């Protein structure tokens, strides 16, 4: 999983704990001045048009802050610590401004000024981001990703699979994500159900199920193949969509442990600054260095055999 240290995680949780404490303290302090129903939703003009009881309000706001805290604590990276502080600052600032707006005489209309109050929340976020930025120096730099050293030389290092001169070989493996399969099938199943049950304009939402389910299912199970054409990754159910790196474009292949969230920011077909990837889980991955320095990664078991065969085929291809 994520390589964040306990200290980094604690620092990421800190602003949310502070925001939660301040918000609950102010709520307790202003309890008597707050109306029986708190205005919690506002029209564009700032007029209140939605109300929530105090118990529900406290539960929902606390859950919101805790949820954000859990997300940031789980997925934080050192260089994004400031963003955790900014998130906490903005959420906390907004909640406090909401309480403040509710602190009025009984017959006055509750007004939440979008410009003013959002501005205050943003200002709090900026200050918090600054504090987070300053605190980043308390966390030691993350060690470089293992396996990224020694990137020079075409396929110089890396495993090999000895082949006789005329021998041909092919390696392939199906790999998938059960979670993605289940989610995609559910999304697909939701489409016809929504169309049947919901009234017409709302039923259009059911099409979302198709938009999510079809590509999801296509990617939920993929076949990774290494042969004389190069590296091919395609849906196990259909010949397309497909990603192919021809032997000409391969500089070398290696095996690396990949953290889906930390290295690629999630699952699926991922595009990053210097690398793309078909990432279905965290763990063993075949990483191909392409000419031009870009990397293509695919998470697959038995990646060592794949890398060895690919290196051997690239070397032989270069000789011919």
């Amino acid at each position, binding site marked *: 999983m994520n390589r964040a240290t306990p200290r980094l995680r604690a620092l990421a949780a800190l602003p949310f704990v502070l925001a939660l404490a301040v918000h609950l303290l102010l709520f307790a302090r202003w309890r008597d001045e707050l109306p029986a129903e708190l205005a919690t939703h506002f029209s564009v003009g700032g007029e209140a048009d939605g109300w929530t009881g105090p118990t529900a309000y406290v539960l929902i706001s606390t859950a919101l802050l805790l949820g954000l805290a859990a997300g940031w604590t789980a997925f934080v990276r050192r260089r994004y610590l400031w963003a955790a502080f900014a998130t906490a600052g903005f959420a906390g600032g907004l909640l406090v401004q909401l309480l403040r707006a509710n602190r009025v005489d009984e017959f006055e209309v509750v007004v939440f000024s979008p410009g003013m109050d959002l501005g205050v929340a943003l200002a709090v976020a900026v200050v918090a981001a600054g504090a987070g930025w300053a605190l980043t120096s308390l966390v030691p730099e993350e060690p470089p990703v293992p396996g990224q050293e020694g990137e020079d030389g075409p396929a110089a290092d890396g495993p090999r699979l000895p*082949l*006789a*001169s005329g*021998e*041909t*070989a*092919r390696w392939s493996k199906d790999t998938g994500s059960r979670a993605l399969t289940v989610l995609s099938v559910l999304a697909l199943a939701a489409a016809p159900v929504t169309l049947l049950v919901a009234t017409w304009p709302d039923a259009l939402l059911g099409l979302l199920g198709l938009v999510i389910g079809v590509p999801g299912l296509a990617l939920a199970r993929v076949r990774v193949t290494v*042969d*004389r054409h190069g590296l091919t990754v395609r849906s196990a159910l259909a010949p397309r969509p497909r990603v192919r790196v021809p032997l000409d474009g391969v500089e070398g292949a290696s095996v690396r442990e990949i953290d889906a969230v930390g290295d690629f920011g999630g699952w699926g077909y991922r595009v990053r600054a210097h690398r793309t990837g078909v990432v279905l889980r965290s763990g063993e991955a075949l990483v191909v260095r392409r000419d031009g320095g870009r990397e293509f990664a695919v998470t697959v078991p038995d990646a060592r*055999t794949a890398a060895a065969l690919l290196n051997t085929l690239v070397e032989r291809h270069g000789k011919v």
Partner: protein
Amino acid sequence: MLFRVDPASSVPLGDQIAACVRGALADGSAEPGERLPAARELADSLGVNVHTVLRGYQRLREEGLIELRRGRGAVIVPGVAAPDRARLVSRLREAAAEARELGLTEAEFLELARTSLS
């Protein structure tokens, strides 16, 4: 699963393909119930004729290691016994090759096999 064929070898290409599947099943890199690549696809990858691949698959089917189903392609037989069966078939083939080297006739080899059973 890794497939490799060497045209320079004296072993027929179809048998080499069958041996790859047996080996993969025995060492765990292929699992019972796993689907083999489509014959056309595998033939293209290895640069051999489709019929060569189909001959290999047919041999595996006779050995009870895979099932050939219309529309579904070739699937390794499900069940925990499949890897052991693959190992047994491999050893039998080795024994047959050895018998051939020793100059035994088919009848003599079968007689020998029957004697070891009783």
